[in-house]
Structure formats: C-alpha cells, structure tokens
C-alpha cells in the first residue's frame, strides 16, 4: 500500500484546492494520519473508496477526540555575549498563547478487496461550542452510521448529511455530552470504603463538617 505521504501527494494533485496535511505519530506504532478540511472531506472520502489503487471499502471504526483550549508556554532563550569576556548572559523569556480547542473525529479505513490498511482520516471542527458541524461520511461508508451517532451523542459533533442523526446511547432529552473533558457528571455520590484520587475529592464534598466537641461537665459531688 502507498504510504500516507504518497496518499497525501496524490490527493493534493487530484484536489488542488483541498487542505490535506499529514499528522505524524511519533510512537512506535507510527500510524500517521491525514487531516482533511471539512469542505472537501466527502469528495476525498469517495475518492479513497473508489480509487483502484486503494479501494478503501471498509470503515472499521469512527471515534471522537475532545481537544480543550490549551495554554501553551513557549520559552525563548536569548544569550548576549559579555563584552568583558565573561560568560554569556542568558535571558529566558516566556510567552503564553492560547491554542483554541476543537472536536476531532477519526476514521479508520481498510480495504477488504486489497487486504490493506488502516488509513486514518481526521476531521476537525472549528471550535467546541458553535461551529461543531462536520460532513457525515455515512453516504460513503454505511458502517459509519451508528458510530457517527455515537460521536454525536457523546461529543456533540453534528454530522451534516447523516440520514438519522439521533442520540444512540443516552436518552433523547439528555443535554450533556459525557465524553467531553469539561463534562460534569450528576452528583449521585454514595459512600465509598477506600476513596482515592477524584473519588476522594468527590467524597470530601459529601463529608459532614465535624461537629464542635461537646465538653461534658462532670456533676459535682
């Protein structure tokens, strides 16, 4: 199979206006993925499915990732040489910048016809609040239907063109998206024998404040 680099180059030559970038995976799996822009995702997906060299006819997995807003601290070092010949003076300057968050949907594609894969596609929303729609790939791979519904349910990504976009795990009146990082679960804490970590923090909110010690007066003889 072609490497993700080659697939990206072919996509760029086939779709000149599209933005396709390669996200490399530095881990030992080295499973690099292709980040597509939302506008061309449907056309690119159809091409990947129908291209005789790839024939990625099977979408095995659709999942979501929540990237919250992140503050990135960058340190720049400037060294000024000492005119008297001593050691150079190093000044560290820290700059903070806010990296806006987004929601990401990941598709794992295989080819049953040619027995190769996976090719990993990623789509990203504009932000996490109001620009959360992405094109649905269910018209391309029918197997995406339930999994896109699950991503809609748990992450809140709205798939444009999905045939039946409803919640699949939680009930219809449910308002939250539980897999988001800022989800606050209902407070139905119950006693826990050995709390630790997050559960301990939750448990402490439920412990009663210790009552003031009652001083027992000894009756005088």
């Amino acid at each position, binding site marked *: 199979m072609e490497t993700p680099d080659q697939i990206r180059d072919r996509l760029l030559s086939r779709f000149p206006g599209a933005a396709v970038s390669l996200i490399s995976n530095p881990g030992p799996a080295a499973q690099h993925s292709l980040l597509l822009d939302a506008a061309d995702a449907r056309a690119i997906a159809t091409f990947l499915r129908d291209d005789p060299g790839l024939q990625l006819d099977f979408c095995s997995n659709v999942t979501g990732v929540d990237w919250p807003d992140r503050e990135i601290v960058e340190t720049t070092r400037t060294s000024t040489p000492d005119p008297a010949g001593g050691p150079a003076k190093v000044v560290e300057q820290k700059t903070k910048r806010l990296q806006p968050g987004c929601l990401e949907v990941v598709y794992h594609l295989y080819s049953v016809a040619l027995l190769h894969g996976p090719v990993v596609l990623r789509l990203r929303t504009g932000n996490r609040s109001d620009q959360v729609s992405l094109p649905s790939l269910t018209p391309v791979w029918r197997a995406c239907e339930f999994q896109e519904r699950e991503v809609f349910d748990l992450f809140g990504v709205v798939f444009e063109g999905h045939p039946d976009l409803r919640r699949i*795990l939680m009930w219809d009146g449910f308002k939250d998206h*539980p897999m988001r990082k800022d989800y606050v679960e209902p407070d139905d804490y*119950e006693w826990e024998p050995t709390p630790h970590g997050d559960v301990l923090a939750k448990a402490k909110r439920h*412990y009663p404040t210790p009552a003031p010690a009652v001083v027992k007066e000894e009756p005088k003889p």
Partner: protein
Amino acid sequence: MSEPAPSSPPTLTDAERAELRRQGILLTSMEELYNWGRSHSVWPLQFGLACCAIEMIAASMARFDIARFGSEVFRPSPRQADLLIVSGTVTKKMTPQVVRLWNQMPEPKYCIAMGACAISGGPFKQGYNVLKGIDRFIPVDIYIPGCPPRPEALLHGLMQLQEKIRGQKISGPGAPRHLQADTTCEYPVPDFGEHDLVPPQNPAVWQPPVIVRKEGA
C-alpha cells in the same frame, strides 16, 4: 413466634411434627401449606441485562438445574412471574423499563439483585450512565454478591428466598406487602431528565446513607 397465651392448647414443636410425619400423620397449618406451595414454585422473569444473565442461564441448564428448586419456569411475561432477577448492570436508560417490568408483575413478587452491578453499580459505580444499585427504585429481597456470581451462588440465593417466603405470615402486622390493605404495590417510574433520572431514587425505598467519618480519618 410469639409466646402462646396460657389458655391456648400447647403447640407442637417442629421435632414432634417431623416425628408424626414419619409415622404417616401430616399436621400442618394453613400458613405453612400456603408458604410451602409458594416457596417451591417461584417463577422467575426471563430477563437478563449483562454477563450475570449468562450465569443465570447456566443455572437453568442441566448442569446446575434450577428446576430442582421449582424455579425452572422462566416466564416471558411479567404478568406470570413471581421473581425478578436483576442480573447485570442497570444503566440509567434501562432503569424505567426495569421498574415498569416490576410494576407489571403481580403480587406476591420478589426481587433478587444478582451481582455487583445490580447491588451497587459494581465496577461502573463511578460512571455517569449507570444506576448505583437497583435498590434505589425497587425493594430488593436478596442480594447475591459476585462479579458475576457462580450459578451455585444464585441457587443459594434462591434457597434463601425460599427460606424467607416460608417465614412469612399470612395475617397480622408482620404480613408481607401484598397482604396489607393500605400499601400500594405500584412503584413510581423515573423520568429521563436533562442530566440524570428524575428523581434519582425513590425515597420511599432507598435513602442515601448518612456518612459519618471521624475527624482525622
């Protein structure tokens, strides 16, 4: 058992009755006969939620054979069932249906919470989508711990339930729920709220535990 009044005739002990039974004389009371019959024909609802249901199915098959205890007739309809075995994880989405099944069963009815999930939420206790014990909505008679419990444990739980049925009175203040005129057998079915079930528990059945923790602990 309360002490008999001095004027009443002396009652037989269990040993004397067993001795009479060996001689071919059967002495019994209405209560004992009634409870004996009920305790040996407990029909469970054919209903499973998760992996505990697999053990429940195994208990009904030839190797463990729940038929030895009169409970082999798994009923597909709640109208014909006496026993609800809550076998598995009860998600919040499934809770109204479980309570509705319980309401549809005729009295006298009993509930077994089988496995860690049905008792307390088990390994999913900290999850947002799992009910932390079916006893928040349904009065549970027998709790069977285990993850999942072995079929033997389910059989032991069933025998404990039979023991409980045999000890029930058919009149007086100790009579079970279905023989008391002023109790309702209808349990409120929770609604789906925006964030959780509404209400999150039935306060008539379950109250949150009062947490007492010593200072410095």
